[in-house]
Structures are given as structure tokens and as C-alpha cells.
């Protein structure tokens, strides 16, 4: 069975080789400072006590006032897993974080996907381009403030009026 690193234990172990890189920890999660992500990930991959050689998943969440990049790591030799998180773009400014492609090549398409759909820039990515959508697509669709096509032609308030008017008129025009 896979051992899951607790946030507190992992934060302590990271602080031992990269002092000052941890922001906080809770449950199974460790929050890292964005600028230290490359050093920490490099250490987690190579150091004998971790050996996190496989990046399972890399994604991001839009929390309105900031974005959170989430890394799920797996260690094949130790059969262990860990969760790293990092808050970027505080106050919805331009969000960016160093790329981890030099550490794990598996981050290549996943970082491009996060840039494409969530709009977080990965500094140092070797091929920093959109992946699902075409170059020139307006905006980043997975952001919470993205206006979809349906919302752009019928806003939420208009939709409400539409329903009310059909009720009173008995079927619109």
C-alpha cells in the first residue's frame, strides 16, 4: 500500500535541505513559495529519503483572489506519494511559477495545458505554447471570470427575464 507523506513531516523534511521554502502545511499538503519550486522538486526527485521520480499530476485551481498550482508526486522505489501546492498570482496579478520540466519531462504537456486553460505562465518551459486551443484564442477558459459564449449572448439576468416574460405571455412571441 502506498504511504502518503503527511504535510507536517514533508514540510520538515523539505526545510532540512531547502530552508525558507515552505509557507505552511496542513493534512497531506505542503504549500511552497513559488520561487523555490525548482530547488525543492529537484531535491525531492534525487535525494535518497524521497526519490519522487514520477510526477503523477500537475494542475491548477482558480481561487478568485489567487491561483494554486498542485503537484501530485509518486515515488516508485519507496511506493510513496506527496502533494505540493503553491499559491501564485496573489490579487489576480500576472501569475507565473518556474517550470519543473528540467526535473520531470512529464510536466511538459501538463504545464502547457495549465497555461492554455488557466493562464499561469511557467518560466523556463522549453515550448511555452497553447496546447488544446489555438494561438490567439481570447482568454483562458478555466478561469472563474471567463465569460462563455452562452453567457455572452444571454447574461444570467436576461435569462431570468426571459423565463418570466414567457410565463406571463403564455409562450413568448
Amino acid at each position, binding site marked *: 500500500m502506498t504511504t502518503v507523506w503527511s504535510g507536517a513531516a514533508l514540510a520538515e523534511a523539505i526545510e532540512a535541505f531547502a530552508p525558507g521554502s515552505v509557507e505552511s502545511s496542513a493534512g497531506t499538503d505542503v504549500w511552497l513559495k513559488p520561487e523555490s519550486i525548482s530547488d525543492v522538486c529537484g531535491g525531492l526527485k534525487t535525494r535518497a529519503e524521497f526519490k519522487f521520480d514520477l510526477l503523477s*499530476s500537475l494542475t491548477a485551481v482558480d481561487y478568485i483572489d489567487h491561483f494554486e498550482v498542485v503537484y501530485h508526486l509518486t515515488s516508485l522505489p519507496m*511506493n510513496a*506519494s506527496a502533494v505540493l501546492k503553491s499559491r501564485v498570482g496573489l490579487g489576480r496579478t500576472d501569475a507565473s511559477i518556474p517550470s519543473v520540466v528540467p526535473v520531470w519531462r*512529464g510536466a511538459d504537456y*501538463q504545464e502547457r495545458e495549465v497555461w492554455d486553460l488557466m493562464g499561469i505562465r511557467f518560466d523556463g518551459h522549453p515550448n511555452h505554447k497553447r496546447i*488544446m486551443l489555438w494561438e490567439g484564442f481570447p482568454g483562458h477558459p*478555466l478561469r472563474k471570470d471567463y465569460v462563455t459564449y452562452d453567457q455572452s449572448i444571454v447574461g444570467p439576468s436576461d435569462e431570468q427575464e426571459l423565463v418570466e416574460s414567457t410565463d406571463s405571455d403564455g409562450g413568448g412571441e
Partner: protein
Amino acid sequence: MAIKTQPVTVNLGPQHPSTHGVFRMRVMFDGEEIVDVEPIFGYLHRGSEKLAEERTYTQIVTLTDRMDYVSSMLNNHAYILAVEKLARIEPSPRGVWLRMIASELQRVASHLVATGFLIQDLGALGTPLIYAMRERENILDLFEMICGARITNSYLRPGGVFMDAPAEFWPALDRGLDDIVRTIDELEAYLSGNEIIFSRTKGTAVLSPELLINASITGPMLRASGVDWDLRHRAPYDYYDRVNFERILHTASDNYARYWVRVQEMRESVKIIKQCIEQIEPGPVRPSFDDVPRLIRPPEGDAYVAIEGSKGELGFYLVSDGGISPYRMHVRASSLINLTLLRDMLIGGQFGDLFVTFGSVDLNMGEVDR
């Protein structure tokens, strides 16, 4: 006398039968040799992750069907496990056994498609593919018996499955398993020792295990390089710790090894299903609606669950804000990530091997683009 050549750029796809959907590659050739490849995705992007933010947890099951549409049950399975972890739902034992049977049947169906189309890409037009698809058809008939649908099943629900299998399903399943083994024997008799298959697949697109792990590649591709990594064994979910199966490993890490691992894994799936049939007991297939209501409101928090899908680690990351739909859903799509090394596999190879290598990755564009 050497003939002077100059590189030519060729656009392959998106509409091409060998691209397994709508995949496009810009390939630069120098004669027959591939010198550069640029994959271009997104022709099947439907924004499933955005759509999920507006649907309830039960409605999203139908979205997961349409991601990797040749292994819908496995998508359902990964998603439902993530919901159960997020909402702390205890599943019903009979429902768990039923969804394990469904998942393993789906794995066989998916591997049959992968194998059949790989042989088709090799130039064996028709016959081996029809043999594989004929067997897949029987599995789809079994799915129709248990849930009424063949491809987009939506069979699983938080806590189990939505209905019990009818009485006539069990004898049909026994016959189906015998048929699967017979078809695998047939395929292997024609293909696994075939000189033409050897010469086309052995020694092509070889990747080292270190490179595969570094590029997050999992599933049959990783096991074909000799790395013993199967989430059903290393991180057992559901009742996979109560069944015995062998992990299929090959050390060559070439196109033949990937084909061989998939064929042998189908036999192991049949073994797992037989053990499930022995251990399944009567009872409810899902908790009552008092325990697990139709509208689930998981507590605030996030959950990531990964299962061993037919193509590798299939993970769902769900974030809840306490509402009736997820705040964010992310799919760790093994098909997309398994393509990371496509350039390494193709560059330096021959044009004739391009689609064979591509077929041996076993990707599904519905999952790549989502």
C-alpha cells in the same frame, strides 16, 4: 552515387484513419527518415473540465464516459472513487464487486481495440481487427445486459452501481470469459510468433525505463520496459487486494513488448473477473438514498484518486467548496501524458514505423483533448 535529397514537411491528419481519432502531426522527412515531429492537439477539445463545474456530482458520470470512449467503465470508476474519497462515502460490497467486473471487462475491450488497430496499422487490413472487434462486441453485449448501454455506460454511482446485474448476465458472463480466452489464443497463434510482426515491431521505438518514468509514462508502456508498477497491486483500491493476478512485465521496451504486455494483461483480467464471480455476495448494489442522496454536497476540500486505467494512471482531482457541483475537476489523462515521448520515439525512425509506433502508444483522442 548518392542521390541528393532535401527535407520535406508533411501534414498528417487530423482526418486520417491511422491517427485513432483527430490527431495531427507535422512531420519533416529526409527521404524515408523522420527528422522532426510536431504533435498538434485540440481537435476534440470539448471543455469537459469546465462543463463539470456546472453539473452535479452524479451528472458528471456521463461526462467521464465521453473522455476515453473505449474505456468508459474505467473512467467512471476513477471518477466515482474520487467522489467517494471527497464525500467520505462507504460503498456497498456487491456494488464494488460489480464495478470491478465491469472495469476488468472494459480493460479487455480496450486492449482488444489497441491490439486490433496496432495490427491494422502494420498493414494487416481487416482480419485481425475484425477478430478483435468481434470479441469486443460480445463484451459490449454484456454491458448492455447490466446497464442498458454499450459504449457510454454511466454504470457507476457514488457508493456502487445503479442497478444489479440480471440473472441471465451470469451464465452469459461465464460463456463470454471462455470466448475471450479463445480469441486471445487465436490472436496469439496468428500474431505473437509471426515473422512479419517480429520484423516490423521488434527493436523499433525503444525507450529506457528511466526516461519513461521521468516523462510520467505509466501503464502497459512502462511495464513493457520491465518496471513493476501497477496501481492495482502497488496502491490497491476497491477489493483488488482480495484478488490474485500476475503483473505482466517485458524487458525489451519496444513496440512488440507493448503489444505482448497488452495481450497477456487480457488473460489476467479474465482471471480477476473469475475471482470476483467467486467472491461476490448478495446484497444492495449501492447505499440507500438516505445515506447517499442524489444531490451530494461533499465537505470543503480536495481529493486526488488514481486507478490503473487501460492506458496508464487515470486520475481525477476534485475540489469541493461545499456545493452541489465541484469547484474544480481535473483529469490526469494518461493518453495525453503518454505522448510526451512521441518525438523521442519517432525521430530517427522510418516513415513505415510511424503509425506502428503511434498505435503501440494506444491513445484515445477523446481523452487527450477532453
